[in-house]
């Protein structure tokens, strides 16, 4: 009942809350503080009393002990008198084990016996023995008036007597009571002052609030010029001021709103745009009178339903229009725009430009869509169709009808955006047909175009519906693969493509075989922008081509690094070729038995103006990768051939000139022609030179190598297999190769004649050469032991530092002259 009453009071009045809230908190705080403080003081007083009695009794125990042992009444009287000087001592007595008083501050008690239950009980309990660790202290009485304790005097494990002391607590109690009285008075006073203060504050507040409330009511009743009184306490004054600002703003907004509405109405009348407002939640729609008029109806003629619009849309346009709306609602477009035809009441078609915007609630749910219909019949009739065609042309490849570079780039950008948003991956394929140029060159562009169409069809078949297949130009195709879950999916597609394009193509009776090289770059692993992805896919494609075509490669960061480094070195090397920083050195090849010169190997040295002599180990592999090796080899061949011819003309015998031939050269169609031209230009006989091809390079594509090497061999040029033993030769191929000589790789020579394995390998190579009737030469021979071992085992042709390091032409000339003498 009271609870209910209090609760209703509490909820009704702010004033009540303030006074009672303040009062209760204040009361609790002050009472708690006072209680803690008083308890503390009380404890302190009581503890001080206890402390004093313990100290006094202990000193009495100590001073009286010897007299108790001697049962000496006179001595005991003296020690008891010593403690009687304490003001608050009521009595002190010493009792013997029989309960007999042997000393007492009131001497009349001496000789009497204790007769109260408490002490008798204590004495009986502590009679038998004494606990050394305990003074057997017992508090007989402890209240506000007195404190009375008894404790044992013990000696030789025996309680020989007891000290009993009583102190008057009166003074202490009085002090405590005084403190409590003052404490309560202070507490009451504080609470009273606090609550009075709260009362006044609350009264002032509620008065100001009532005044403000009145103003609000008046304003809401329509008194628009109501001004709240701001002459009150700061916070409420602020509130009143905010209220005044609010009414000002509301008044202004009301005016503005009216103007806007008028303006909008005028605008629609002027443009004759129809307005529609679709409540998606309730699926109702508002059409403005102008909208209806546009179709020849009056305001009452058409219902406010979606069907009013939908039924009048041209059947050919409806699907696109609905799709555009759906896409906009789904958030795929920034703005809904669609051009469609609406049926006029008179049966004609009205071209309308429909534009609108959707509104979402806080849960991203579409709740409303508003837009306009503009009659564009005049403008559209001629232009719309035209534009559509143009747009399509701009974005598609005329030959294959596939998206062109422009559209692909656009789709790629959109794809990346989507992948970013949905945290998915995508892959960009760069597909290049191998040797397409040859088809074009040999069979004409007509056939080439047919091939491209066929390739386009095949790729279309393989790719998924939502992948974008594009032709960038020439024989370059790209695929944008979206929603990629793992890189493996891209591999699968790449394999499918390779397989599909390997199928022969039949065009006008020509059976054509093509293959393709594919580079793949992944988002977001490799790059997160369209340009880079395309560039990286392109780079990976080149890698695939470089690795022998008809394969695919994923882009790797290493490719970029290597590519940029290669670019640098390539540029540097080109410069070196131009500026003749390259130089040909010659290393003699000697008959290890007779020590006669049998020939020399031409080796290139790069004398870099800044870096000095660059090791061939550094630049040759890069030159091979970049294809620059072709130029370098040609230059070396030309230079060395000229030099040899010159020496021979001078009457010197340089023996056979061994030249390195890069595989890249072999792949070139004009290779044999080139060599023939070179020899003819210099006036060099084919039997004067030998070409060295590394085993590894031959084995990369042995079939092709066999064809070309046969041509060279037929020219009468000696062929040697360089670095023999390092390239996993197949003996079958070795037998079919038109070669004359094997060159034992220096890695097997280095540890001769100590390493068992190398001994075995070099012996085996020599044995192999003998079995196939081939000549054999060892390179990298540095010591006499190595030379001797090789000669003893049947390899007498020796090249290496043991005889001479590679030397410039001038030095070689001197060497030759010495040999000739």
């Amino acid at each position, binding site marked *: 009942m009271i609870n209910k009453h209090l609760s209703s009071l509490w909820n009704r009045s702010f004033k009540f809350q303030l006074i009672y809230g303040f*009062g209760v908190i204040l009361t609790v705080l002050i*009472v708690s503080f006072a209680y803690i403080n008083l308890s503390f003081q009380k404890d302190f007083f009581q503890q001080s009393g206890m402390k004093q009695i313990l100290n006094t009794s202990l000193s009495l125990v100590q001073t009286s002990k010897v007299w108790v*042992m*001697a049962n000496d009444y006179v001595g005991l009287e003296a020690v008891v008198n010593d403690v009687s000087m304490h003001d608050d001592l009521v009595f002190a007595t010493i009792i013997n084990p029989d309960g007999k008083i042997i000393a007492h501050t009131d001497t009349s008690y001496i000789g009497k*016996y204790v007769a109260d239950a*408490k002490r008798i009980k204590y004495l009986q309990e502590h009679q038998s023995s004494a606990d050394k660790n305990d003074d057997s202290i017992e508090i007989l009485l402890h209240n506000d008036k007195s404190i009375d304790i008894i404790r044992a005097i013990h000696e030789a494990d*025996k309680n020989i007597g007891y000290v009993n002391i009583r102190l008057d607590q009166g003074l202490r109690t009085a002090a405590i009571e005084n403190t409590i009285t003052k404490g309560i008075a202070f507490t009451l006073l504080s609470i009273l002052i606090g*609550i009075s203060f709260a009362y006044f504050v609350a009264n002032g507040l509620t008065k100001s609030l009532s005044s403000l409330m009145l103003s609000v009511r008046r304003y809401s009743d329509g008194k628009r010029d109501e001004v709240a009184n701001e002459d009150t306490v700061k916070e409420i004054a602020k509130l009143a001021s905010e209220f005044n600002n609010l009414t000002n703003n509301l008044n202004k907004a009301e005016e503005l709103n009216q103007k806007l509405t008028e303006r909008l109405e005028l605008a629609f009348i002027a443009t004759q745009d129809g307005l529609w407002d679709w409540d998606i939640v309730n699926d109702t729609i508002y059409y403005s009178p102008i909208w209806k008029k546009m179709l020849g109806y009056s305001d009452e003629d058409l219902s406010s339903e979606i069907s009013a619009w939908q039924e009048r849309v041209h059947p050919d346009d409806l699907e696109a229009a609905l799709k555009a709306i759906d896409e906009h609602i789904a958030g795929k477009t920034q703005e809904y725009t669609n051009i469609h035809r609406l049926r006029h009441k008179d049966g004609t078609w009205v071209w309308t430009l429909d534009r609108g915007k959707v509104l979402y609630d806080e849960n991203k749910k579409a709740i409303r869509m508003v837009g306009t219909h503009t009659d564009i019949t005049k403008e559209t009739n001629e232009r719309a169709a035209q534009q559509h065609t143009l747009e399509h042309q701009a974005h598609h490849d005329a030959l294959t009808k596939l998206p062109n570079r422009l559209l692909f780039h656009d789709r790629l950008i959109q794809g990346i955006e989507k992948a970013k948003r949905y945290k998915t991956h995508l892959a960009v394929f760069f597909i290049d047909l191998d040797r397409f140029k040859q088809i074009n060159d040999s069979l004409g562009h007509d056939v080439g175009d047919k091939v491209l169409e066929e390739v386009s069809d095949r790729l279309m078949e393989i790719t998924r519906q939502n992948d974008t297949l594009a032709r960038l130009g020439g024989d370059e195709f790209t695929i944008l693969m979206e929603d990629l879950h793992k890189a493996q999916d891209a591999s699968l597609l790449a394999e499918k493509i390779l397989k599909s394009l390997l199928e022969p193509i039949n065009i006008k009776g020509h059976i054509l075989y093509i293959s393709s090289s594919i580079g793949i770059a992944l988002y977001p692993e490799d790059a997160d922008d369209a340009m880079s992805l395309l560039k990286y896919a392109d780079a990976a494609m080149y890698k695939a081509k470089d690795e022998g075509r008809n394969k695919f490669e994923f882009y790797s960061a290493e490719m970029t690094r290597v590519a940029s480094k290669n670019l640098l070195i390539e540029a540097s090397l080109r410069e070196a070729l131009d500026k003749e920083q390259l130089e040909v050195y010659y290393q003699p090849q000697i008959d290890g038995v007779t020590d006669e010169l049998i020939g020399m190997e031409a080796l290139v040295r790069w004398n870099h103006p800044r870096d000095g002599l660059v090791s061939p180990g550094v630049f040759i592999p890069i030159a091979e990768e970049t294809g620059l090796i072709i130029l370098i080899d040609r230059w070396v061949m030309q230079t060395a051939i000229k030099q040899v011819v010159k020496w021979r003309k001078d009457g010197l015998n340089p023996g056979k000139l061994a030249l390195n031939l890069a595989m890249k050269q072999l792949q070139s169609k004009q290779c044999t022609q080139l060599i023939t031209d070179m020899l003819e230009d210099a006036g060099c006989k084919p039997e004067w030179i030998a070409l060295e091809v590394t085993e590894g390079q031959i084995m990369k594509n042995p079939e092709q190598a066999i064809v070309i090497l046969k041509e060279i061999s037929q020219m009468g040029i000696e062929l040697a297999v360089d670095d023999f033993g390092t390239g996993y030769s197949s003996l079958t191929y070795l037998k079919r190769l038109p070669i004359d000589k094997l060159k034992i790789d220096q890695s097997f020579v280095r540890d001769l004649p100590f390493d068992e394995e190398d001994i075995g390998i070099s012996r085996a190579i020599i044995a192999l050469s003998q079995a196939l009737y081939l000549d054999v030469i060892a390179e990298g021979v540095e010591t006499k032991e190595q030379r001797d071992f090789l000669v003893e085992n049947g390899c007498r042709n020796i090249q290496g530092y043991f005889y001479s390091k590679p030397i410039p032409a001038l030095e070689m000339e001197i060497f030759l002259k010495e040999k000739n003498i």
Partner: protein
Amino acid sequence: MNLYIMKIFVLVLVVMLSFGCSSSEENSYEPLYSNAPIFMKNKVYIFGVHPLHNPNRLFEVYQPMVDYINARLKGSELRLEASRNYAAYDEKLFSGYFHFSLPNPYQTVTASSKGYKIFGKMADDENFRGIILVRKDSGIEKVTDLRGKSVSYPAPTALAATMMPQWFMHEHGLNINTDVKNSYVGSQESSILNVFLGKSAAASTWPPPWRAFIKERPEIAEQVEIKWETSHLPNNGLVVREDVPADVVESVCKIIFSLHESKEGKAILSKMELSKYEKAEDATYDSVRLFLKRFEKEVRPIRGGDLNDK
């Protein structure tokens, strides 16, 4: 109305506050006394030992024996009591306050004429003798070498430590009253230190304190030697007031004379530097009576001063 509720609230708090502060237990107790003992299990017999140690040491040494006896007595118990000095002891003994007592031989003899019966004594009579110490470098060979010199004693009435050595010197040709300067220095240790410091030519004491001194100050004892030993007299006696029931006395006798037969008893005796207690009777102390008589007659009067230490 609001104020009314508030007042009630405040009142409740104040009441709570005052309760909190005056919550001490409201108990009461006043001591009561009677003229007769209210509780007493056993008949208590007071056992007074003469002040041969200070009270603390006395309790340390003799309380175990009293406990041992009490553990074996039925219906009665002994209570050990010390005394502040010989005067206090003598007063209690000769006024018949103690039921049992352990007086020195002189007091034993006196007590036998004041209502006490001699029933036993400490054994080891050979310890109850006087010894005379000199510095090892003093050059004193004969008792007569002490003539004209100073001799230190603990107290004039100590039987073993003073009177017996004086009798010894008397018998060896010195007139105690004229030939030497008697210096009563108050304690056994003081007497020994006097001769070490050269303040006296000889020091008079008896075996137990000398043995203790050797243990405590071996470096000093090293420079002092026992020059002469007196003959011995019966050791401290055990007396009982004549009104103590015969069966109690008999029980106490039985326990105390068989102390040395148990391990526990032996430990108690060793604290007293004693081998055992033994039976004695009035005639056992005739030799003491004779010594005192001759000493008074031939050396000096005893009565007049307190008969204090040995």
